[in-house]
């Protein structure tokens, strides 16, 4: 038998044949690794989770025409939205605003993609239904109160189109919009409907974009669009992006702090367990020294056991930590968490290092013991 084979035999025999003791140590390492990997998973997933939460509060980026241009064309918008990672796009809603008259009172009509509006502004409270057919519109609560309209009512919109010709179109109120904001003074219809009554197309005044990304990432996209699509001036909705960044930063700092504290507690817990394991084996260390083992050999043996325990505990920690993070995420964010592959090496390395260190300190102290004293049990 080669020396390496004997070394492996000694390490594995110690772990397998002393399994009750080693299970306690393994449990300590696994619990520490579980909490560590779980918290790191949550730490890295918070921006994604919270980003989705923040997307409920409306657009975080808008496109407006640049310079002398007064409108945006569909092709320009398509070119600009090409700079968004497709997975991060929550919704992109173009708006065209025109003045129409209801009972000779002027109101602002907004033509848009109502399906996208639903994604970009999920906070809109609708009484009635979202429009499903042509000629169906949403009207703001303020408009409804002024002209006494309810869902299911019809009204006639009049005005002058782009060519200077008068128009008159009937619409059905599908639902009322309540937001507590400026939207309550608008009439929302599909873009083709508005283009139909105005007699022209491909003229959008503003595009509201809801993109799941950090403020920095959004800043990068804004820069790219600004440089590559001169017809568009992209603007961050600062009140959304900055408050998002502030809350995210504080939340991440909190989880980071908790992770560090848990890591320290884990180190203490694992160290204490390993110290107890090593201390009860002082006689064995003394015996091995009496048989002629060099301190280095004894340290290597215990380190081998520690690394094995750290590795096994780390593997368990990766699996259980992900489950732990999943449970936390389901309960707190009501969403499933994404697995971070980088977490495998991080958890393994941290577990192995902590266990190795926890073993090394008591073993080094134990190797200073005189075999004669230990073997006499004094």
């Amino acid at each position: 038998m080669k020396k390496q084979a004997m070394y492996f035999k000694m390490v594995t025999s110690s772990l397998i044949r002393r399994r009750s003791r080693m299970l306690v140590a393994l449990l300590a390492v696994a619990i520490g690794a579980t909490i560590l990997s779980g918290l790191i998973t949550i730490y890295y997933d918070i921006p994604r989770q919270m980003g989705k939460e923040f997307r409920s509060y409306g657009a975080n980026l808008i496109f407006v025409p640049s310079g002398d241009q007064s409108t945006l064309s569909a092709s320009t918008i398509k070119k600009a939205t090409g700079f968004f990672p497709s997975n991060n796009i929550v919704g992109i809603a173009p708006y065209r605003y025109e003045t129409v008259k209801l009972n000779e009172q002027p109101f602002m009509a907004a033509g848009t993609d109502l399906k996208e509006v639903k994604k970009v502004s999920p906070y809109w409270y609708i009484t009635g239904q979202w429009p499903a057919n042509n000629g169906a519109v949403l009207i703001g609560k303020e408009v409804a109160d002024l002209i006494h309209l309810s869902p299911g009512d019809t009204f006639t919109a009049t005005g002058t189109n782009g060519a200077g010709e008068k128009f008159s179109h009937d619409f059905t109120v599908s639902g009322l919009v309540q937001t507590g904001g400026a939207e309550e003074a608008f009439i929302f219809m599909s873009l083709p409907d508005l283009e139909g009554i105005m007699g022209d197309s491909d003229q959008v005044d503003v595009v509201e974009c809801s993109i799941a990304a950090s403020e920095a990432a959004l800043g990068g996209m804004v820069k790219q669009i600004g440089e590559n699509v001169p017809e568009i001036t992209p603007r961050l909705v600062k009140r959304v992006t900055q408050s998002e960044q502030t809350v995210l930063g504080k939340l991440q700092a909190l989880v980071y702090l908790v992770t560090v504290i848990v890591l320290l507690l884990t180190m203490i817990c694992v160290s204490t367990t390993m110290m107890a394991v090593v201390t009860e084996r002082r006689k064995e260390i003394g015996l091995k020294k009496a048989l002629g083992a060099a301190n280095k050999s004894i340290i290597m043996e215990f380190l081998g056991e520690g690394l094995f325990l750290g590795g096994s505990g780390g593997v368990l920690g990766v699996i259980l930590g992900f489950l732990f993070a999943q449970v936390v995420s389901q309960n707190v964010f009501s969403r499933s968490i994404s697995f971070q592959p980088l977490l495998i090496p991080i958890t393994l390395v941290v577990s192995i290092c902590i266990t190795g260190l926890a073993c090394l300190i008591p073993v080094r102290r134990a190797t200073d013991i005189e075999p004669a004293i230990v073997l006499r049990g004094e």
Partner: protein
Amino acid sequence: MNLLELKDISKIYGNVKALQNINLNVQQGEWLAIMGPSGSGKTTLMNIIGCMDRPSNGSVILDGQDISKEGQKGLTTVRRDKIGLIFQQFHLVNYLTALENIMVAQYYHSMPDEKEALQALERVGLKERAKHLPSQLSGGEQQRVCIARALINYPKLILADEPTGNLDEANEGIVLEIFKQLHSEGSTIVVVTHDPEVAEEAQRTVVLEHGRIARITDNNKEIRGCDL
């Protein structure tokens, strides 16, 4: 030819003089017993001979090498290469089988050799128990494994501390038979014991009292009175 020479050995712990001016030679192939009441310095002397402690004064020459000035590393090397230790409490590694316990000594000495370790077990009559853990062996069997482990690296000196202290009469007989066999093959044995029957088996018995050699007997014949 002397294998071991103790020259004017003293060991002092604070104000306690555990050993005082011990002079003793052990010849190659000799079987020596060390006796004495508790606190007489037997264990201290055994630890010094076994390279697990150093004398405060005097010198210890083992196989021509002065080990009294060696550091921990040097003493570890001497223990590994020249001494086979047998303990009263057996001190086997509890998670290794009888065979693996012997191979541990080979592992620290040079290279583990399963065949040779099995032969050592066969020599003490435990070949069939090779795969058993210490907890599955009787006290006598554990002591025999301990003896096999002590012999595996062909030590110059076999040093046994109360080798029959924890054994019943039958197992004491078996262990003494093994010692006789080893002695007849030319091994040098130093046994520390309380038991006069064990001591009688040795060629010479050194009796310690209050850290000094009180007397040395040779085959039941007192050869030298000592009032040191």
